[in-house]
């Protein structure tokens, strides 16, 4: 069934081709679900949610481990539990959800083109649009490992879906390249399912994933983590028969003579996530080079008026709680935009990443909301640091800074009222 039966309105059925909405949300992961719920609660009348898969919930459905929603719900949910809680909430609203519906285009005038097997190609003309398409994994093509192209090389997220939803074990002897959270989680998962995980190899000299995942996914199961290591060759004809791993130097170049052959039938890649940005590009929103997602204001508005973005489509967040918060802001502000509560105000200033900061989100401040900053450090600093926000002279002390732990902080609106120059966030050793 394409449509969910609740809150269906007949006039949609016979239109087929063109419909109107106050807010159209694209994607039903936590970002999209929260945005749609919040838009509806904030007074937007016709809220439409479009999802290409056959169920709501996004990536959460395959993240069967716990650790979700500790902040938002004060509960230690698994991904599916967290999703089901949001799905129950959206059912209590007037939001209309379209499943199996792929969005193929978004225009700058907020017309969304979508296709499904029941309605064919149709368009939704919305007063505002929320982009919530999430992110995708970097695949082998984007990292370039020499060697053959046998079966048995797959991304950690694909393996996660195979094991957790479809019930297939992708291999028995596994090497994992990259120490992102999905790779760590899958190291544990595959071990529990009876596979032997030979090790996690990370090219950087620090781990990519959260510390707690190193402990409870690797250490708990005696799975070794090799930093400053990478896979330099894949061997095998039809199927992976092994990989060559090498140590790398400070410039991340393989060190001659450090090669080691590891027999395995599967290589999992956990080498990073990038925002799904095809639709964003098509809509003409400005993209950030640092995040690959839209340049976003504190209201989650992109550079195109009335188009908002939230969750991992904007920048890759570590925690679902952060994703949900951006969804809440996007939904509320999309409703404000529709209600006409969006008068020209004092313009905007840029928010810039300064010293030792790889990513700062959002990238613009428009003087409409309080500013919640998400800051990803550029390198690990295992010493006390000060995070400074210029020009308002806000200084926050932290015990360390690490790229695998995004720092979140709130800046009071009042402090920013008189700011006229760019806001710059930097991290310095104390």
């Amino acid at each position, binding site marked *: 069934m394409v449509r969910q039966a609740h809150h269906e309105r007949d006039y949609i059925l016979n239109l087929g081709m063109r419909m109107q909405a106050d807010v159209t949300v694209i994607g039903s992961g936590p970002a999209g679900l929260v945005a749609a719920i919040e838009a509806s609660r904030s007074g937007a009348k016709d809220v439409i949610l479009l999802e290409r898969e056959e*169920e709501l919930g996004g990536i959460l459905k395959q993240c069967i481990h716990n650790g979700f929603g500790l902040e938002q719900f004060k509960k230690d949910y*698994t991904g*599916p539990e967290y999703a089901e809680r949001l799905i129950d909430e959206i059912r209590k609203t007037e939001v209309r959800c379209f499943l199996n519906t792929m969005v193929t285009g978004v225009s700058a005038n907020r017309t969304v083109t979508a296709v499904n097997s029941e309605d064919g190609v149709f368009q939704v003309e919305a007063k505002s649009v929320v982009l919530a398409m999430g992110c995708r994994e970097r695949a082998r093509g984007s990292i370039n490992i020499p060697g053959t192209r046998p079966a048995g090389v797959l991304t950690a997220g694909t393996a996660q879906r195979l094991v957790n*939803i479809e019930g297939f074990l992708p291999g028995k002897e596994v090497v994992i390249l990259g120490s992102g959270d999905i790779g760590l989680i899958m190291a544990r998962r595959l071990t529990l399912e009876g596979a032997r995980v030979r090790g996690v190899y990370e090219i950087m000299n620090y781990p990519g994933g959260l510390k*707690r995942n190193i402990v409870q996914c690797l250490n708990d199961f005696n799975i070794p983590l090799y930093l400053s290591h990478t896979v330099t060759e894949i061997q095998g004809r039809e199927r992976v028969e092994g990989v060559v791993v090498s140590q790398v130097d400070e410039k991340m170049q393989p060190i001659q003579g450090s090669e080691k052959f590891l027999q395995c039938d599967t290589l999992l890649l956990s080498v990073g996530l990038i925002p799904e940005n095809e639709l964003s590009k098509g809509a003409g929103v400005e993209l950030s080079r640092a995040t690959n997602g839209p340049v976003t204001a504190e209201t989650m508005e992109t550079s195109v008026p009335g188009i908002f973005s939230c969750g991992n489509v904007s920048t890759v967040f*570590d925690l679902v709680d952060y994703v949900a918060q951006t969804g809440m802001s996007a939904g509320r502000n999309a409703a404000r935009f529709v209600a006409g509560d969006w008068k020209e105000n004092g313009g905007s200033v840029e928010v810039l990443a300064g010293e030792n900061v790889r990513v700062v989100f959002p990238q613009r401040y428009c003087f409409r909301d309080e500013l919640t900053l998400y800051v990803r450090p550029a390198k690990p600093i295992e010493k006390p640091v000060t995070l400074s926000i210029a020009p308002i002279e806000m200084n926050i002390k932290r015990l360390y800074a690490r790229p695998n732990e995004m720092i979140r902080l709130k800046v009071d609106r009042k402090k920013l009222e008189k700011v006229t120059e760019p806001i710059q966030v930097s991290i310095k050793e104390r």
Partner: protein
Amino acid sequence: MNVEKRHFTCVTCPVGCEVDVELRGGNIVSIKGNRCEKIKEFVVQELKEPMRVLTTTVRIEGAKWAMLPVRSDKPIPKRLFLQAVGELANIDLKAPVHISDVIIKDIAGSGANIVATRTMERS
């Protein structure tokens, strides 16, 4: 008595505080590096018997998907994980299942129940 130094990473929440603990005769003398008060409970338990929530899947028939995600409703001793997964491999389960339904009681003799973490209708 000698002071023993140990390092722990708390896994209670995603912050993952790393703490240095001083022990004397198995008793905690000091803990440094934590950001909240849950740390003491974590370290005491970690010294006695490391406990974790088990999350895994069980095969289900008559549903849209082959696998139903499940969890232990409270932490169980880490050393019982493989035994628990073994018990779960042998059960017969048919859709529909509702979120929080008990799938197995007292898994691996741990006192915890295995419960469904999502609803799966018959399809």
